C-alpha cells in the first residue's frame, strides 16, 4: 500500500509556527548543489506561492470568520514554508544564474510530467510548452555567456541539453490561442490534476520572477530579453490554468492545493540527495498533512463532501526530476512547427491565412529584431558562435543546427 496523507498524522497546526532563525535557513552552496536539488527548491517555492495566492482569493470571497481564520492560519504557515524554501537560494547566485535554474526546472519538470501524463490532450499541451521553455533556457544561457562570461552547463550540470527549441520569436501567440480545453473533474485521473496544478504553479512563479527581476537590470538587452520571455510565461500560465475544471469548488480547490503539496514534498523527499534539504521536505510534508486535514474538514462541514470521496486511496506515482534529453529531442523534432488555433494544435503550414497568430506576430515582432534573436546575434558577434550544450549530438531539427558566424 502506498502513502495516503489522509491516513497520516501531521504536525498540529498550532505547533507549526517557526521563529526567524528557523526560517532564515542556510543557503545551499551554488558550486556544490545538485542541479536537481535547485530545481526542487524552485518548484516548491512556486507551489507554496500558488497555494498562498489561491488562499488569498478564497479569503476575499467570504466573510465567514471560521473559514477566514482557518485560511489565514494555514496561509501564515505556508508563507513560512515559502521563506524556508526560497531562502535556500544563495545570494551569491546572480539573477541570471537563478534564471537558468528556473528554466532547467521548466524543461525537466515539464518533460517528466508530459511523459507521465495519461491524457493525450493534456500531454500535448505540456509538450507545446516544453520546447518553448527549452528555447528560453538557450536564450538565457547566451545572455549569461554575454553578460557574465559563464557557461550555463556549470549550473545545469550534464542533465539538461541547452539548444534552440521552438524559437521564442515564434512562440508569441494571440491570447485567444493560449486558452485550452479543460479536464473534467468527474473523469480526470488524479495524477493529471496534480500535473496541471504543479505546472501552473511553477510557470506562474517563473512569470512573477521575470516580470519583477527583469526590470532590475541596467543592460538594455537583458531588460529586453526578460520582458519578452515574461510575456511568453504569461501565455504559459494562461494555457495551463485553463486546463483546470472550473466546476471544482473553492473548498475542493483548497483541498487539492494541499494534496498537491503533500504529493510533491513526498515525491521530492524520495529522491533528495541533500540530507539537510531532505529534512525540510519531510518537515513540510508533515505540516501539509495537517493543512490537508484542515481543508478536508472545511469541505466536509461546508459542502458535505468527505475527502475520501474525491481523493485517491494513495498518492499517485511520484513526480521526479531526471534526465529526459531524448524525450525533449523527440518532441522538438516532431513538434517544432506546431502552433495553436483556439484550443486546437495545428501545424504552422496548416494555419489559415487570417489566423490570429499572424496578426499577433505582426503586432509584437513588427517593430524590429526580437530581443530573443538579438541575444544570439550579439553572442555570435562577441565570441564567434552561440552557446550550446548538446552532449547527445547534433540538433534534432536540421534548421536549428549551428550556423556560421554572421560576420
Amino acid at each position, binding site marked *: 500500500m502506498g502513502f495516503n496523507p489522509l491516513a497520516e498524522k501531521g504536525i498540529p497546526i498550532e505547533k507549526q509556527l517557526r521563529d526567524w532563525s528557523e526560517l532564515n535557513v542556510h543557503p545551499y552552496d551554488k558550486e556544490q548543489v545538485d542541479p536537481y536539488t535547485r530545481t526542487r527548491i524552485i518548484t516548491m517555492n512556486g507551489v507554496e506561492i500558488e497555494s498562498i495566492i489561491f488562499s488569498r482569493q478564497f479569503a476575499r470571497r467570504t466573510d465567514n470568520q471560521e473559514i477566514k481564520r482557518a485560511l489565514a492560519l494555514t496561509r501564515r504557515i505556508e508563507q513560512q514554508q515559502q521563506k524556508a524554501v526560497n531562502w535556500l537560494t544563495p545570494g551569491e547566485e546572480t539573477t541570471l544564474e537563478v534564471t537558468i535554474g528556473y528554466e532547467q526546472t521548466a524543461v525537466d519538470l515539464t518533460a517528466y510530467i508530459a511523459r507521465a501524463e495519461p491524457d493525450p490532450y493534456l500531454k500535448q499541451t505540456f509538450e507545446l510548452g516544453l520546447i518553448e521553455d527549452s528555447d528560453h533556457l538557450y536564450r538565457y544561457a547566451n545572455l549569461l555567456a554575454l553578460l557574465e562570461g559563464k557557461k550555463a552547463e556549470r549550473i545545469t550540470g550534464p542533465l539538461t541539453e541547452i539548444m534552440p527549441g521552438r524559437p521564442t520569436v515564434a512562440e508569441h501567440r494571440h491570447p485567444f490561442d493560449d486558452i485550452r480545453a479543460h*479536464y*473534467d473533474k*468527474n473523469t480526470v485521473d488524479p495524477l493529471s490534476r496534480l500535473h496541471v496544478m504543479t505546472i501552473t504553479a511553477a510557470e506562474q512563479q517563473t512569470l512573477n520572477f521575470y516580470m519583477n527581476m527583469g526590470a532590475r537590470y541596467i543592460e538594455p538587452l537583458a531588460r529586453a530579453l526578460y520582458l519578452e520571455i515574461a510575456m511568453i510565461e504569461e501565455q504559459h500560465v494562461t494555457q495551463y490554468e485553463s486546463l483546470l475544471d472550473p466546476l471544482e469548488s473553492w473548498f475542493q480547490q483548497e483541498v487539492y492545493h494541499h494534496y498537491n503539496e503533500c504529493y510533491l514534498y513526498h515525491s521530492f523527499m524520495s529522491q533528495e540527495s541533500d540530507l539537510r534539504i531532505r529534512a525540510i521536505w519531510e518537515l513540510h510534508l508533515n505540516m501539509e498533512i495537517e493543512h490537508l486535514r484542515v481543508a478536508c474538514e472545511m469541505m466536509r462541514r461546508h459542502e458535505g463532501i468527505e475527502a475520501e470521496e474525491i481523493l485517491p486511496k494513495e498518492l499517485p506515482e511520484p513526480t521526479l526530476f531526471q534526465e529526459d534529453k531524448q524525450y525533449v529531442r523527440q518532441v522538438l523534432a516532431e513538434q517544432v512547427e506546431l502552433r495553436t488555433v483556439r484550443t486546437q494544435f495545428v501545424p504552422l503550414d496548416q494555419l489559415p491565412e487570417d489566423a490570429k497568430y499572424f496578426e499577433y506576430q505582426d503586432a509584437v515582432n513588427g517593430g524590429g529584431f526580437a530581443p530573443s534573436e538579438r541575444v544570439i546575434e550579439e553572442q555570435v558577434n562577441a565570441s564567434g558562435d552561440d552557446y550550446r550544450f548538446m552532449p547527445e549530438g547534433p540538433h534534432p531539427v536540421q534548421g536549428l543546427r549551428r550556423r556560421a558566424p554572421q560576420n
Partner: protein
Amino acid sequence: MTITTVTRMTGGKTTPIGMTVAPPERRMGLSDLDGFGVDEELEGIFLANFMSAFATHERCGVHLYRMAAGLTQIPEWREKYMEFEDHTKDHLRVLERLIERLGGDPMYVSPQARMAEFVATKLMEPILLEGSVDPLTLELTILEAVTLAERKRRLNWKLIRELADQMRETISKQAMQEAVEQVESDQDEHVRWAETAWLRMVMAQVM
C-alpha cells in the same frame, strides 16, 4: 456504499463537449447513449443526459443535507435534515438502478449534469456570507436552499412519472413506474416539510 461524488475512481464517464476534454477510455460515445430506453424508441441520448443530471441533483441533495445538518442550531431541523439525507441516498440508489435498467451507466456524468452540479453547489454558498448575517437568516437561507432543491428533485421524478404514463407496456415503462413509486411519497414529504418549516419560522418572527 452510496456514491455521492462521481470521480474517475468510481468509474466516472462523460461526453466531452465545448471546453471539456476527457481521456478516450472515459468518454461516453453517442452510440453508447443511444441505446438508453431503446425498447420505448425514446430519444435515448437526450434522456440519458437528463437522467444523469437527475442523479446529480440527488447526489448534491445528499451533500446539501449533510451540510445543513452540520450547521443548523435547531435540533428538530437537524433531525429532519439527517432523516432526509438517508431518504435522498435511497432515492439515489433507486435512480441509479433505474438508469441501469434503462440501459445506462449511473457513473455517466453528462454535460447537463455538470451544469446541474454548478447550479446546485451555489445553494451551498450562503455559508460564505455568514459573517454579515444573523443566525436566523442563515438558517432560513439554508432551508430555502433545501426547498428549492427538493422542488427541483420532485419535478424530476414527476417527469419520470409522466413519461412512464405515456409509454407502451415495456420494460422501461415498468422500471420507471417502480422507481417513482419508491420515492414519490418521500419527495412530497420533503417539499411539504421544508415549506411548512419555512412558513412557520417566518410567521413566528413576524406575528
